[in-house]
């Protein structure tokens, strides 16, 4: 198969295995492009991509922008704080106005879950979700899966545990959908106050003890405590969180196996993960950043050049 079945990338819920496989396989090619002396190919020449960010983001926006420029697309950046949104324009009006400027692809981050889906049914541009509220963040999950595959060769049968603030995390939901589609066994671990009610119904195991979770896992994806989303209200103190759920070298060694550690960043060092782990041999945190550009190039390529 050489083209996606989906028109937009709004989430990984319901995205077929073949599509995920195609995106992961294509990222290999783009990773090779990123290693060249001239890290640019003319693939999306003449296409216009708008990065529509209604929420703050540094790394995701830079990663997307790099991916777009590496593919020779024309890039326009839009951030809500400097836009007409602050003047009271609705989301739909903003999108329609942008579309009237003949835009091909919209990469959108928004605080409301489903914002991308809402616009994709009302506009003709292609939409890529760069995070919608606490719902999904598909490209982050794809790059997580790609990084795991790079280390382990396959996702089939791997045991992956997502640890931390599950309730506030869009990364966790996309990871659950994507990993399960690709045949991995998925678990989550965190304080009960940070695990959504009835999450087991998605077919994941739930741990509230991090040491048990580590014994289960081949791979752990450590989530950031999102203080900006009032996550601090869910546990007594950062120190206590670190003591109960922080990933330390001692804990990893006690699990008695070689566990791969991922983290979508930015890291709260000494809270959810200690520096020795983040910077140590277990970690694939920095390769994840490089992989992020490659996987986003793959997504942009397949969404942007998809035959009508």
């Amino acid at each position: 198969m050489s083209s996606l079945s989906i028109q937009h990338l709004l989430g990984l819920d319901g995205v077929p295995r073949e599509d995920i496989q195609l995106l992961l396989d294509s990222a290999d090619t783009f990773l090779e492009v990123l290693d060249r002396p001239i890290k640019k190919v003319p693939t999306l020449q003449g296409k216009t991509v708008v990065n529509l960010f209604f929420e703050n983001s540094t790394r995701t926006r830079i990663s997307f922008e790099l991916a777009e420029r590496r593919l020779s697309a024309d890039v326009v950046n839009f951030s809500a704080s400097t836009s007409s949104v602050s003047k009271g324009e609705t989301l739909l009006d903003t999108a329609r106005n942008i579309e009237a400027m003949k835009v091909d692809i919209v990469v959108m981050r928004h605080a409301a879950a489903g914002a991308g889906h809402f616009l994709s049914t009302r506009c003709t541009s292609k939409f890529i979700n760069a995070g919608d509220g606490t719902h999904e963040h598909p490209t982050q999950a794809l790059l997580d899966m790609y990084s795991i595959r790079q280390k382990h060769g396959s996702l089939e049968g791997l045991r992956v545990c997502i640890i931390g603030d599950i309730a506030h995390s869009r990364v966790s939901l996309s990871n659950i959908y994507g990993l399960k589609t690709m045949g991995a066994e998925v678990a989550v671990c965190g304080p009960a106050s940070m695990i959504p009610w009835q999450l087991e119904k998605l077919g994941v195991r739930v741990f509230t003890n991090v040491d048990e979770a580590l014994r289960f896992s081949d791979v752990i994806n450590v989530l950031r405590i999102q203080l900006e989303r009032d996550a601090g209200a869910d546990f007594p103190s950062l120190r206590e969180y670190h003591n109960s759920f922080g990933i330390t070298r001692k804990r990893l060694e006690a699990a008695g196996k070689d566990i791969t550690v991922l983290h979508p960043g930015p890291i709260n060092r000494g809270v959810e993960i200690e520096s020795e782990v983040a910077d140590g041999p277990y970690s694939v945190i920095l390769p994840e950043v490089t992989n992020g550009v490659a996987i986003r190039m793959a997504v942009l390529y397949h969404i942007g050049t998809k035959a009508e």
Partner: protein
Amino acid sequence: MTILHHIIDESGFERMISRLAHEILERNLGVGNLVIIGLRTRGEFVAQRLTAKIASIEGTAPPLGVLDVTLYRDDLRNHLRQPEIKATDIMFDISDRDVILVDDVLFTGRTVRSALGALMDLGRARSIQLVVLVDRGHRELPIRADFIGKNITTSRGEEVRVRLREVDGRDGIDLVSIEA
């Protein structure tokens, strides 16, 4: 699809590879500065054959790489079709080398144009020389091959099918009709 006629059989194919290898070596005064790059997919196998033949003549094999030009195609933006992308695999620096670019059939020249764009991004080669098994005409760009296995006059409703041992089980070149 009907086979109009067999242009080259198995033994003719082998002789053609041998002649092309000798021509390349003669023009480049040996293997010293050569690198061979095959265009995915069939050019890759032709390049392997040429490299093996050059190695058997000279006693030393030039570096061999594979180039995928999908990302450089000029028809992606038309949304006509979305070709599968495969990896480029060139594990050496092409700067100041004489690059022998290998493909099976030269037709409109657009694939070669894409390949030239890709090679320019990989480094500044001293020269790029094009080898094709078949030149079937109908060029849409000012591009020509340096080494040609066989020139064939074709119509647009015909196709040149190159069969390779590695992919199809045997070597050979046929002219086929693709008109219904």
